[in-house]
């Protein structure tokens, strides 16, 4: 393995670990508050609250069923997607690999919760008056950020190719 590739993988591993542990620390803090107070409902400012919701489904609260078999199927499916993303990272150039690592770091954080808690804790509640956006967590921020970057990258790389 060349030094350039080693550097690339080290950078990507560092990004992955930072995202994963940021997510873990935030979730552990919230779970500590839950253990001490029995409820997590913290007012940050007029637009943001920390309010704990357990999500057994996927994004936007979809597929939140009580069926254990379906839950296991979804978890295995997400695990497979993570493996596919890892393969994409290994084959991509550094820029794209960084964006995919953002997605993988966030996804791994949620997958960890799915396996160990059998649900993902969401706690960031952004709202405008009584209009609440979906409750999300730190992992979701990085997944969304990574995918937005990938969309922009698609535009940029396509322009470069055309020129």
């Amino acid at each position, binding site marked *: 393995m060349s030094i350039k590739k080693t550097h690339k993988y080290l950078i990507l591993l560092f990004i992955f670990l930072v995202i994963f542990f940021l997510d873990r620390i935030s979730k552990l803090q919230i779970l500590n508050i839950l253990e001490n107070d029995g409820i997590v409902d913290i007012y940050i400012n007029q637009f943001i609250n920390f309010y704990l919701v357990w*999500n057994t489904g996927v994004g936007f609260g*979809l597929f939140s069923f009580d069926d254990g078999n379906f839950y296991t199927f979804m978890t295995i499916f997400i695990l497979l*997607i993570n493996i596919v993303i890892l393969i994409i990272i290994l084959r991509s150039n550094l820029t794209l690999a960084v964006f995919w690592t953002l997605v993988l770091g966030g996804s791994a954080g949620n997958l960890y919760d799915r396996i160990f808690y059998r649900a993902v804790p969401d706690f960031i509640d952004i709202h405008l008056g009584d209009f609440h956006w*979906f409750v999300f967590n730190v992992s979701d921020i990085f997944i969304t950020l990574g*995918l937005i970057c990938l*969309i922009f990258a*698609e535009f940029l790389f396509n322009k470069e190719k055309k020129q």
Partner: protein
Amino acid sequence: MKILKFLKLFLLLMILASCSSLSGFAPKKGATGEEFLIQKKNALVMPPDYNDLPVPSSEETKSMDDSEKVISLLGIKSTTTSEINSENETLENSILKKIKNN
């Protein structure tokens, strides 16, 4: 082709992210309305003529004739037969007195 790629990425977001809704954008539990904007109603009080109202279970209801209803609506005082008799007697006496005097 691009649209297909965006759809794939959006699908990926849906599967990998775990954001959940607060029961369909409803105000979350504990978040009540503006309590200071709620108008307080006065306590319930008995109506002023409550004692004059008939008891619902009693079957004795005063039935009024049409003529009596008309009289009561006009506000004319009804006169009893005894009153009329006494008036007639006084009239008789006065006439008799006048005859005697003549």
